[in-house]
C-alpha cells in the first residue's frame, strides 16, 4: 500500500498524484513479467554460460572417452565410464573415505559447536569478547588451515606429538605419524576441518539458541523443570530446525572439501585419505581423463543431491508459511 502522507510531503497536489499512481500501477502490472526478466537476464546469461552449460557439458562428457590432450577426439562409450567407476575399488574406497570424513568432521564439529554455543549463551561477563575471538578464524582460507596443521602434526618437529610426549601420553615424540600413517591420515585431515569450521557451527547454533522464545523458558520454570529438563525438553527440541540446517550446510561443504586434504596429504599415503574431490582432481589434472572424471563427478553430484533432499524432507514443514 502506498503511504499517502509520505507522498503528500513530496508533492503538494496529491489528488493529482494519486491519479498518476493509479495509471502507473496499471502500466506496471502489464509490464511486470518482462521487467522481471530484464532485471535478471544479465545474471542469467552469466550463469548459463559458466554454470548451466558446464554442467550440461559434464553430463555429456561423462558418456564419452575423452582425453585432456586430445580435446577434439571424443569417442562415445555410453555408460562404460559409470560402470567402470562404480565397479572400481578405488572409487568405492574413496567414496567410503568421503563418508567417513564427513561423519567424523561434522559429528565432532556439532558436538563442540553446541557445547561452545551453550556456554556462550549463558551470557557471562566477557562472553561477547570471547565470541568475537572465536569468530575471527571464520573467514580463514581452508588452505591456511591445512598449512597450520601440517606444521603442528609433523612427526619430526610438530608440536602436537611433542606436547603429547611431554604430558606422558606418548612414549616417543615420533610415535604417531599423523600424516604418513594410513591409520591416522584421514583423521588428521578431519582435525583441520573441525578446527576451521567449529566456529561456524557454534555461531549458527548460538543464533538458534538466542532465537528461542523466552516464554518457553518461563513456562518451563513455572512447571518446575530442572536445568537439565529445560535443556532436554525446551532447548534441544527448539534447536532442531536450526541444527538440521547447519548440519546440512556443513555436510555439503565437508563432502566437497579439497584444499585441506590437498595441502595435508594429497590423498595419501596409499589413498588412505583420498576423498572424492582429490581423486577427481587427480583423474583430471594428472591423468587427463575427462570422461571418467566427469562420470564420477555426476555420481558425486547425485549423491549430494540425494543427501540434501533427504535432509530437506526431514525439516520441510508443509504447514510452514511459504513466501
Amino acid at each position: 500500500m502506498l503511504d499517502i502522507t509520505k507522498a503528500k510531503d513530496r508533492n503538494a497536489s496529491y489528488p493529482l498524484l494519486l491519479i498518476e499512481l493509479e495509471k502507473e500501477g496499471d502500466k506496471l502490472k502489464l509490464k511486470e513479467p518482462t521487467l522481471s526478466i530484464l532485471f535478471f537476464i544479465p545474471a542469467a546469461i552469466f550463469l548459463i554460460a559458466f554454470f548451466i552449460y558446464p554442467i550440461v557439458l559434464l553430463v555429456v562428457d561423462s558418456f564419452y572417452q575423452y582425453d585432456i590432450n586430445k580435446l577434439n577426439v571424443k569417442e562415445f562409450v555410453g555408460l562404460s565410464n559409470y560402470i567402470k567407476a562404480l565397479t572400481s575399488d578405488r572409487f568405492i574406497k574413496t567414496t567410503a573415505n568421503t563418508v567417513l570424513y564427513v561423519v567424523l568432521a561434522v559429528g565432532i564439529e556439532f558436538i563442540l559447536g553446541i557445547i561452545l554455543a551453550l556456554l556462550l549463551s549463558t551470557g557471562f561477563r566477557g562472553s561477547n569478547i570471547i565470541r568475537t575471538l572465536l569468530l575471527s578464524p571464520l573467514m580463514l582460507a581452508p588452505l591456511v588451515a591445512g598449512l597450520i596443521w601440517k606444521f603442528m602434526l609433523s612427526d619430526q618437529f610438530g608440536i602436537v606429538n611433542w606436547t603429547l610426549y611431554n604430558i606422558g601420553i606418548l612414549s616417543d615424540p615420533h610415535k604417531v605419524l599423523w600424516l604418513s600413517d594410513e591409520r591416522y591420515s584421514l583423521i588428521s585431515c578431519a582435525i583441520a576441518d573441525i578446527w576451521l569450521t567449529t566456529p561456524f557451527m557454534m555461531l549458527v547454533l548460538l543464533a538458534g539458541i538466542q532465537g528461542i522464545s523466552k516464554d518457553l523458558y518461563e513456562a518451563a520454570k513455572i512447571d518446575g523443570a530442572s536445568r537439565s529438563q529445560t535443556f532436554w525438553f525446551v532447548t534441544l527440541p527448539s534447536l532442531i530446525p536450526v541444527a538440521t540446517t547447519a548440519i546440512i550446510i556443513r555436510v555439503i561443504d565437508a563432502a566437497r572439501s579439497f584444499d585441506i586434504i590437498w595441502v595435508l596429504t594429497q590423498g595419501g599415503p596409499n589413498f588412505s585419505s583420498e576423498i572424492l574431490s582429490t581423486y577427481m582432481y587427480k583423474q583430471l589434472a594428472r591423468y587427463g581423463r575427462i570422461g571418467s572424471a566427469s562420470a564420477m563427478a555426476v555420481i558425486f553430484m547425485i549423491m549430494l543431491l540425494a543427501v540434501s533432499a533427504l535432509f530437506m524432507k526431514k525439516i520441510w514443514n508443509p504447514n510452514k508459511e511459504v513466501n
Partner: protein
Amino acid sequence: MDKRVNAKLEFNRLMEYPIAITTCLLALFFLSPYIYLLITSFKPATEVIASPPRLLPTIFSLENYRGMIEYLPIGKYFINSLIAAGISMFISVFLGSMAAYGFSRFSSNIGNYFLLFTLAVRIVPLISMAIPIYTVIKNINLVDTKLALILVYTAINIPFVIWMMIGFFDGIPKELDESARVDGCGRLSAFIRIILPISLPGLATTAIFSFMLSWNDFLFALLLTSTSSKTVPVGISEFLTAYNLDLGPMASAAIVFSMPVMLFSFLIQRYIVSGMTLGAVKG
C-alpha cells in the same frame, strides 16, 4: 517463590566463573593454532624445523619474510589475487543484486524457477564444476589468464549474492521505489539511484563475503593457472612441493595472506554474524 528466584540467581552467579573460565580455555585452545603459525613465521629458519620444537623463538627474526619474497614473486601473486577477487566481486554484486531486485519486486514463473536453481547450485560440488569449466576455458583459450578466474568466480558468486540480497531488498518498502517512479525515474534508474544506496550495508556485507570466497579459492586457481596468473594460495602451496626447509617462508606467506582477513573479520564480525546466520536461522 521469591526466595527460589533468588536462589537461582545466586546459583547462576556462582556458576559464572567456572563457565567463563571453561569457555576462555576452549577459546584459547581454538585460537592457539593460528597464534602458533604467527609465532613460527617469526622464528629463524633453523628453529622452524627444530626437533623438539620450541614454543617461542629464541630471537625474533624476519628471515622467513625475507625468504618468502626471495623464493616467490609473492607481490605479483597478490596483485593477481586482488584483481581476480576484486573484479569478480564488483561484477557479481552488481549483476546479482540486480537479479535479486527483480525477484524481490516482480513475480514471474521463470523467475521462481531461476531462484530455485540458484539455491540448488550450492549443492554442486566445486570439483564437478571444475572439470567442465576446465574444458570450456581451454576451448576459449583463456587458460592461465586472470580473465578466466574472474569469469569463474563471478559465476560462482552470483547465486550467493542473489540469496543474500533478496533478504535486504525485501526489507526495503516498495513505496520507496514507487515514489522514485513518481519523481520521474525509470525502473532501472530507481534501482540504481534509490534502492542500491539504501541497501549499502547489505551490499557491503555481501561484497565482503563474495570477495573472500574468491580470495580463498584454491581449487580453480590451481587448475586454471600455471605461470602468469597464479594467485597467492597456489603460490603458497608451491612451497609444499619443494623441500621442508621452505616451511618458514611458507608460514610467513600464509600469515601475510590471511592476516588482513583475520583483522578485517574481527572488525566487521557483527556483519559476519548476520550474513552467516541468515540462511541457516531463517531456513
